[in-house]
Structure formats: structure tokens, C-alpha cells
């Protein structure tokens, strides 16, 4: 950890190679920083700091700003790495670990068991990775509900038609409908249908009715009146006729009868079928070129006259046809009116036949006759229109009504059949959707049931280990409603779900620990370690012991990191699990961060040397002073130096001068000769502490030179080397008691043999 939470500069925690570790420290000594670091690394956030305005506290607050905030984790697998603050990792980074359980803290211990049954369900769904499966279940449920609604609507529609077709009943059969239909057809003299499928064709009613009786008189009158109302005088353009008449009497038109003669002359001339130089008609000699010109000229005149003629011929013939149609239409009406025994004048005599004759003969047309005919037609139309108004529409006949009813019935039958088809299809869709959804939900329930059974078995086992012989039994996690789970327990013969009403706080906490351990044991795949941070606050001595036994014996395959401020629990766990690593936090200071019982003299000296080599003289001085403190504290503790009693963390904050006094007193009593040889170093170091290593003084008096710091550092290294065996590199108090200590290999001892 670097500049992280309670660590201002750097701290390394050695968890060994998969061994479990118990970490002891009083409140405020910085042990939870370890849990924070692992939580931040593996979750991407620290839950306590996830609320607004707390994120900045990931970085050591008010630290010396030395370097970036980072946490580096070394693992035996692939999950290790280094994370810098601010954390740039995306949520995808944690996707695989999101479902793993590894951290239980005292302050959030009961979070899970205090959740509502729905919240527990959601938490479990997330841990089990069922969220995607649950999402599909919700979609299937929505589809089923939508299809049910659609089916209900289709059913209602069918019911409406059934009622209509069965005169109020809810049921109707095709046979009944067909029978009724046939009866109506027979009454009307209409060919009855063979099946309802035939009726489903809209063309059936048209053809069936059309093939039966003729249209009734009422329909005839209406149609006749409508037809009279729609009468319109034929188109007439006098200018076209005037143009035609002017043309046919002109000189140019007189050329037209010669047209065939001139064309024939041209053909003969071009095919050289006539004797050269002679007229093809009279045989007299002619100038051939003059003849050709004459033929061309005559042909041009004829063609021009012909084009003029065509320009008028077609419009005149069109108008002649219009007049003819107008006459025919009126004549037909006239006949129908007479058939209805009504009076109407005769239709004016038609004049169009003369037009065709005149046009064929290229003769003028009598325009006056046409205009007179049109005047008479208009008059006739007015008389007809008056008659049409007189034709009052009588009430529809019974047959008309019956025909209309038949048409309506056929339409209803078609709509009913369509509704039945739609309804049947909707029902099939609902049945299928219900079947898939029900089976899906059941499988989800069964699978979850199996999982809960598996977890419940573990929860019960762990809970029993914590509370053996109590009349609290059959602890389990049970499904409760479709989307809920709840903890349950047998309490003196009654099932309690949830168990909060009958369990004490410590029992509930035991249950929470049991659930946590069971979840991890059941679902963890990638993380093989668990962190329990101050989880035994509400436990008495006996239950602390049981938890220690459970962790030591039941989780020997796991790497556990247990943090506690409870001395008894620490000692109990240390005895129960002698192979576990132990770390004791002794104090924490804002400037130095957490301190443990493990002295870091060598490491701090190396750091000072490193800074000096890199030109950071000030940093080297700071580290050198820290190394000297560490060394003096280590020696004083190892040699039982007589120092005034101080309670708690104050021991870690003794002045260097005080440590020198204690060490001198010990050496004076037990190694006087050695003291004499060391005394010059002591004096130099005391001077260094007041000047070269006096970091506070540097700010006002100027900084120490590199050579001065280097000399001080060498003196500290010399003093440090006095307490280590040159052969095995262990301290001279590695074994034995301070009265008769020795190194690991036994070649170096304290008090020094030579001295003694």
C-alpha cells in the first residue's frame, strides 16, 4: 500500500504463501486499512467510502503527498496487480468477482440477515448470477400476461358474435348457423350454401342473389330515377362542323377526288413502268422533268387537303358517336319508363346517321339540324327530370329486407369465423406461453431450492459449531413467496421465519457469520481467501473460542485473514491455529502510519540508502532517523531495557533520547565493556539526531549535506550490525531469553561471551 488510507508512505503486509493470518491491533492502529486495501483492489470501491463525498479518503488524508496512492497485490493466481488512485478500472473488471464473497466486517455483519426477504432474494440472485435468468423470467411473464389479455379480448369478441348468431346464447355451432342460413335462402329462393366456408367468400352472396329473382320494382324505380338524374347533354362544338363545311366546299377539297390518280401517277413514274417522255394517260410526248414536277406539285396539294380533312373528320365522328349514345341512352330510359306505366314524351329523332353519311361523302353537314336535335334533347331531359322527381321511392319490399338481412348475416358469419380463428390462435399462444413460463419458473424454483438446501446445510453446520447443544435447530434459508427468501430456525419446537424475534444479538451475529461462510464455501470460485474484520464484538469468551475453532479447523483449506482488536480472541486463535501468521499492530501515527511488532530496521535503512543514492538527501535523513528509532526500540525491547512504564501506544512514541538512556542503562548493567566500545557511536548519533537527522530544524536552518547524512547513516548501520550474527544474519536475541540470548546458529550471543 502506498499513500493509502492510514498508510502515509508505504506498508507491505506479507501473507505468506496461502497461509492464514490473524491480525491484532487495538482500535485506531490501522489494521482495517488492510481490509480496505483488499476491498478496494477486488471490488473497485470501499463500501464505507462509496457514499458521496468520501471517495477522496481512499488516499491518505493529509499525508506527505509522496507518490501516487496505490495498492499492489501479489497472488499465486492471475488476480494480482497494481491499482492506482483514482481507479480507472471499469465495472467489467469486477464482473467475475462480483459474485464472490470474501469480506465480512463487524459494522456490516448483520446487513444480509437484516435485509427483507425480497432484498435477500435479490442479493442471492446477484451472487448466484441469476439476474440474467431472472430477467428472462420477467420477460416471459410479461409476454404471458400480454397474451392472456389479447386472448381475453379475442374471446369477448367471439362471444359478441356468438350471442348475435344464437339470439343471446353463449354457444353457437356451425351446424346451427348453416341450418338457419339455408332456411333463409330457401325462403328467398336463393341457392343455399353447402358449407359455412362457402359463405366466407364475399362473392357468394352476390352470385347467389344475382342468380335468383330479378331486381324488384322499387330498385328499378330508384335506379331509373338515378339514371335520369345523371343525364347530360352530349358535347357539341359548332366550330368543328363549320370548319369541316368550309373545307369540303373549298377548291382544295376539289383536289381530293384526284388523290388516287395522282398517287398512281407517281408510283408509275417512280417504278419507270411508263414509257419515257410520254404521258401515261394520253401517250403524248411530254417533258419528263416537267411531268415529275407537276406530279409532285399535284401530290403536295392533295396531301395538304387530305391533312386538313383528317383534322376535322375525327372530331366530327366523335361528336356523331356522342349524339348516337345520347339517343340510345334516352331511348332505353324511355322504354323502361313505359314499362313502369309512366308517361314521357318520345325521344327526339336522331340526326347522327346523316352526319356519318355526309362525312363519308365529303359533303357539308347540316349544323342547324344538329342544334335543333340538341335543343329537343334538352327539352326531353327536362321532362324526364320532372318525371324522375315524381317517381317516389316506395318502402323496400319484404324481399329486399330479407335479402339485406341475408347479406348482413353472411357478413356476420364471416366476422364470427375470423374472430373464432383469431381466438383459437390467441388461446394456442397463451397455452404455449403459460407452459413455457410455468416450467421456467418451476425449474428456477427447483434449482434455487437445491441451492438453498445446499447452503442451508452449511449454514446449519457452521451455526451448530458456534452454538452446540442449544435448543435452536434446523437453521436454513428457505424460499418465501415467488421472489423472496428468508432465514428460518426451530425455536423450542416452533418454526421462526425470520428468526429475529427469538434470537439474541450475538446469536444473530453468529447466524450472519454462518451465512457468510456458507455463501463463500458454496459459491466462491476464484477467490480462495476470506477476510473477517472485527466480527466478534458481541460474542462472549466461550463463543469467541468456538469461532476460533471453527475457523482454524473448518477452514484449514482457505486462506483466512482475521482482524481483531480482541486480545483473547487473538490469543485463542493463535493457540488453536499455531501455523497461522500473526501480525500485531501496536500503534498508528499520522506521520508514520501503522506500526507492528515486527521491526523494520533493515528495510528502513535500505530505504534511506536508496534515497541518498537517488539524491534525495532530505528523504534519506528522514528515513535514517526513522531507522534509528526503529533500531533503538527493537534493541530496548529485546534487552528488556528499563524504561518508564507507559500505557498503550505511548510506548511507540518515546523520544530517541529516552531510548538511548534505557539502552545505556542495560548495557552498563550487563555488558559494560561493550558499552564503552559503543559509546562513541552513541554520542555521534545523539549529535546527528540534534542536527543532521533533525528534520524539523532543516526547515529553518538549511538542509544537511549529503556527506553528513551519509556519515550518520553509516553510523546507524554500524550500530545495527552489532546486534546481528555475521554468519546467520539473525539477531543475537533470536533464541533464548534476554538474560542468555543467542542467534539462530548460536555463534553470536548476548551478553557477548567475550565481554562476559
Amino acid at each position, binding site marked *: 500500500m502506498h499513500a493509502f488510507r492510514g498508510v502515509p508512505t508505504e506498508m507491505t503486509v506479507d501473507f505468506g504463501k496461502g497461509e492464514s493470518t490473524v491480525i491484532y491491533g487495538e482500535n485506531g492502529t490501522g489494521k482495517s486499512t488492510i481490509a480496505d486495501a483488499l476491498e478496494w483492489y477486488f471490488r473497485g470501491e470501499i463500501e464505507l467510502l462509496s457514499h458521496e463525498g468520501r471517495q477522496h479518503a481512499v488516499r491518505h488524508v493529509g499525508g506527505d503527498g509522496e507518490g501516487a496512492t496505490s495498492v499492489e497485490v501479489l497472488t499465486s493466481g492471475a488476480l494480482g496487480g497494481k491499482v492506482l488512485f483514482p481507479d480507472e478500472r471499469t465495472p467489467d473488471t469486477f464482473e467475475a468477482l462480483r459474485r464472490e464473497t470474501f469480506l465480512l466486517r463487524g459494522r456490516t455483519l448483520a446487513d444480509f440477515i437484516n435485509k427483507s426477504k425480497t432484498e435477500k432474494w435479490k442479493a442471492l440472485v446477484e451472487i448466484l448470477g441469476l439476474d*440474467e*435468468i431472472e430477467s*428472462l423470467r420477467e*420477460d416471459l411473464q410479461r409476454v404471458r400476461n400480454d397474451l392472456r389479455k389479447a386472448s381475453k379480448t379475442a374471446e369477448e369478441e367471439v362471444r359478441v358474435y356468438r350471442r348475435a348468431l344464437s339470439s343471446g346464447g353463449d354457444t353457437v355451432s356451425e351446424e346451427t348457423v348453416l341450418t338457419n342460413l339455408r332456411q333463409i335462402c330457401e325462403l328467398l329462393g336463393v341457392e343455399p350454401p353447402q358449407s359455412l366456408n362457402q359463405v366466407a367468400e364475399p362473392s357468394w352472396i352476390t352470385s347467389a342473389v344475382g342468380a335468383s329473382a330479378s331486381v324488384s320494382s322499387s330498385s328499378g324505380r330508384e335506379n331509373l330515377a338515378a339514371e335520369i338524374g345523371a343525364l347530360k347533354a352530349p358535347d357539341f362544338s359548332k366550330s368543328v362542323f363549320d370548319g369541316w363545311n368550309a373545307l369540303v366546299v373549298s377548291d382544295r377539297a376539289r383536289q381530293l377526288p384526284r388523290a388516287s390518280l395522282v398517287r398512281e401517277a407517281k408510283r408509275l413514274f417512280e417504278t419507270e413502268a411508263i414509257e419515257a417522255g410520254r404521258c401515261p394517260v394520253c401517250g403524248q410526248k411530254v417533258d419528263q422533268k416537267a411531268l415529275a414536277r407537276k406530279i409532285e406539285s399535284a401530290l403536295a396539294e392533295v396531301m395538304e387537303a387530305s391533312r386538313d380533312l383528317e383534322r376535322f373528320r375525327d372530331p366530327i365522328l366523335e361528336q356523331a358517336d356522342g349524339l348516337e349514345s345520347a339517343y340510345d341512352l334516352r331511348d332505353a330510359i324511355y322504354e323502361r319508363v313505359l314499362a313502369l306505366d309512366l308517361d314521357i314524351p318520345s325521344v327526339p329523332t336522331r340526326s347522327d346517321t346523316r352526319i356519318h353519311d355526309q362525312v363519308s361523302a365529303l359533303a357539308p353537314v347540316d349544323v342547324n339540324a344538329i342544334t335543333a336535335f340538341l335543343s329537343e334533347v334538352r327539352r326531353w331531359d327536362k321532362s324526364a327530370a320532372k318525371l324522375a322527381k315524381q317517381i317516389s321511392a316506395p318502402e323496400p319490399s319484404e324481399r329486399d329486407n330479407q335479402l339485406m338481412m341475408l347479406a348482413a348475416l353472411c357478413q356476420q358469419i364471416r366476422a364470427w369465423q375470423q374472430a373464432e380463428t383469431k381466438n383459437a390462435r390467441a388461446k394456442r*399462444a397463451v397455452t404455449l406461453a403459460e407452459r*413455457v413460463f410455468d416450467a421456467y419458473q418451476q425449474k428456477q424454483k427447483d434449482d434455487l431450492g437445491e441451492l438453498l438446501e445446499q447452503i442451508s446445510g452449511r449454514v446449519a453446520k457452521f451455526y451448530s459449531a458456534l452454538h452446540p447443544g442449544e435448543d435452536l435447530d434446523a437453521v436454513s434459508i428457505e424460499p418465501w413467496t415467488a421472489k423472496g427468501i428468508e432465514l428460518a430456525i426451530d425455536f423450542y419446537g416452533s418454526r421462526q421465519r425470520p428468526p429475529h424475534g427469538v434470537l439474541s444479538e450475538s446469536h444473530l451475529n453468529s447466524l450472519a457469520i454462518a451465512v457468510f461462510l456458507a455463501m463463500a464455501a458454496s459459491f466462491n470460485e476464484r477467490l480462495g481467501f476470506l477476510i473477517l474484520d472485527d466480527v466478534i464484538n458481541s460474542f462472549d469468551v466461550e463463543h469467541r473460542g468456538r469461532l476460533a475453532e471453527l475457523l482454524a479447523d473448518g477452514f484449514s483449506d482457505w486462506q483466512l485473514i482475521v482482524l481483531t482488536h480482541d486480545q483473547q480472541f487473538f490469543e485463542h486463535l493463535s493457540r488453536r491455529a499455531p501455523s497461522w501468521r500473526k501480525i500485531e499492530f501496536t500503534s498508528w501515527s499520522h506521520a508514520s502510519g501503522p506500526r507492528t511488532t515486527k521491526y523494520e530496521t533493515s528495510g528502513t535503512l535500505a530505504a534511506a540508502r536508496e534515497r541518498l543514492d537517488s539524491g534525495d538527501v532530505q528523504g534519506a535523513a528522514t528515513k535514517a532517523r526513522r531507522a534509528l528509532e526503529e533500531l533503538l526500540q527493537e534493541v530496548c525491547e529485546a534487552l528488556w531495557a528499563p524504561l518508564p512504564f507507559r500505557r498503550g501506544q505511548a510506548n511507540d512514541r518515546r523520544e530517541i533520547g529516552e531510548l538511548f538512556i534505557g539502552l545505556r542503562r542495560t548495557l552498563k548493567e550487563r555488558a559494560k565493556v561493550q558499552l564503552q566500545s559503543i559509546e562513541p557511536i552513541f554520542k555521534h548519533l545523539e549529535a546527528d539526531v540534534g542536527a543532521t537527522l533533525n528534520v524539523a530544524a532543516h526547515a529553518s536552518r538549511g538542509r544537511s549535506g549529503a556527506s553528513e547524512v551519509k556519515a550518520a547513516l553509516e553510523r546507524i548501520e554500524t550500530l545495527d550490525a552489532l546486534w546481528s550474527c555475521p554468519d546467520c544474519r539473525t539477531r543475537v536475541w533470536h533464541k533464548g531469553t534476554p538474560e542468555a540470548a543467542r542467534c539462530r546458529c548460536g555463534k553470536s550471543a548476548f551478553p557477548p561471551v567475550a565481554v562476559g
Partner: protein
Amino acid sequence: MHRPSAQEFLLTLLDTLDELPPDLARRFAELLKTEHVDRPAAIRQLFEDIAGD
């Protein structure tokens, strides 16, 4: 612990159900492979299509 995907879960289930429309599992598999803006609408359409076949 094996955590099946929703598709795997459903298709395993459909395998165990008798007398389902023959194409249902295949069509469901295709549907779930596609990312739908409105998956419920697509599932509903599938059921309706099969009911109309």
C-alpha cells in the same frame, strides 16, 4: 458452481418438455442470440407465429 446463462437455462428446460412445437427451441435460441430492443415483443411474436403455424 456452474452458473448457466439465461439461454442455456431455457434451452435445457425446453429439452425436457414433451410435445412442444418442433421448431420452438431452435427459434428461441435464434431469438435469444439476437440483441432485441424489445425482447418481450419478440418473444410474443414468436409464440403468436407458432400458434398460427
